[in-house]
Structures are given as structure tokens and as C-alpha cells.
């Protein structure tokens, strides 16, 4: 639209992401956007009483991306968003690093905030990605939804 090449709205990738870059791509879609809500999930260094050094992600990549695209389309329709973006990292992520990014932009703030909350909740339920916590005592797959 403005001649810049921007990354896809929905992505699964190994590398970290930049909020500034994602927000600027989101905002480029409309000047009617009055509210943008984002959610960033980070790798905590502590989980259920154990210290966690790293988290390793496995994904059913093709289906995960397809489900994330469906989620984006559903959120746009359901909350009348102007645009939305979802990025999820795979591979190994160190403690304190970013894992997932969600952004929802709407004319007003309430739909943007509600859509962002809905998107991260639904992503956890519907998108085939699994995390394994790597601790000094060993590794274990996570099965609950905290």
C-alpha cells in the first residue's frame, strides 16, 4: 500500500520479533485505527516451583499456521477489527525471551482489547504447538493451560 514490504500478518518463525515493526505494519492498514491492543507471551524463568532455563517448541507447522489464519479472520469478523496480526516462535527460546505476539486494531479501544484477549485464549486451545521446559534437572513437556 505504501510501497514498503511488510511481513505476513500470521507467521510461525524461529527468530524474535519487533513490536515496533508489527505495530507499524498493523497501523499501515488504516488511519481510522483509534485503538491497538497487543499481547506478548514470554518465557518465564520459573514454573511450578522449578527454575526454567529454556523452552523448546514443537509445532504441526502447516496446521498451526492455517489455524492462526482462521483465528485472525474470525477475530476480525467477530470484533469488527480493522486488522490483526499473530506471530508465534518455534525452536528454542531462552528464559525471559518473547514467544508469541498478538495485535488487534479497531476504531475504538474496547473491541481491540476484547479481541486481543479472545485471540490469545483461542490460540492456546486451537493451535497445534507444544512446549517443553528445559530445567537444570531435566526436560518435561507442558500439558496444562495456566
Amino acid at each position, binding site marked *: 500500500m505504501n510501497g514498503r514490504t511488510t511481513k505476513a500478518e500470521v507467521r510461525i518463525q524461529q527468530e524474535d520479533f519487533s513490536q515496533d515493526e508489527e505495530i507499524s505494519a498493523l497501523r499501515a492498514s488504516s488511519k481510522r485505527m483509534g485503538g491497538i491492543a497487543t499481547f506478548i*507471551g514470554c518465557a518465564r524463568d520459573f514454573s511450578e516451583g522449578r527454575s526454567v532455563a529454556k523452552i523448546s*517448541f*514443537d*509445532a*504441526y507447522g*502447516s*496446521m*498451526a499456521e*492455517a489455524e492462526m489464519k482462521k483465528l485472525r479472520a474470525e477475530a476480525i469478523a467477530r470484533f469488527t477489527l480493522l486488522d490483526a496480526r499473530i506471530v*508465534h516462535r518455534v525452536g528454542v527460546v531462552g528464559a525471559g525471551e518473547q*514467544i*508469541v505476539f498478538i495485535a488487534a486494531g479497531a476504531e475504538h479501544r474496547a473491541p481491540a482489547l476484547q479481541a486481543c484477549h479472545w485471540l*490469545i485464549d483461542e*490460540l*492456546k*486451545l*486451537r*493451535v*497445534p*504447538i*507444544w*512446549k*517443553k521446559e528445559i530445567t537444570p534437572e531435566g526436560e518435561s*513437556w*507442558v*500439558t*496444562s*493451560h495456566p
Partner: protein
Amino acid sequence: MIRVLFFGPVAERVGSSEIQVTFATGMRLQDLHRQMQGMYPAAFEIVCFTAMNGEHVRDMQLPVSDNSEVVFMSKFSGG
């Protein structure tokens, strides 16, 4: 041939992320599930979702066509 894929904790318990299963006429998802469960009982303790050709499947009576990709999955933990 049916490609059966495993990810995360299921793949770890199976000891593999992909196996090939010979297609048989009239095969249903539940037949494939039973066969895999017999081979990998520990892995199937945690299986709770099935996908065929990239789509969630709830009806295990669904017939499997040849060259399908079937995935038996544990509860997701992304995000």
C-alpha cells in the same frame, strides 16, 4: 499409504515423528487409532485430538482415504 505424524510429547513417547501405515479399503479413523494405540500405548494415553489433512476431526467414524495425513495429538501448550 497413510502418513501418520506425531509431535511434541506424543512423538517423544512414540520415539518417532512419522510412520507409514498401509492403506486398507474401508479403513476408518477409529481403526487407525486402535491400531496405533496397540503399538504405542504410552503415547496414546495422552492423545486427545485427531487431525486429518490439516483439519481437526471430531468424528472418528470418518473414512480414511489413501495418501491421507493423519495426526494424533496431545493437548496443545503453545502461547
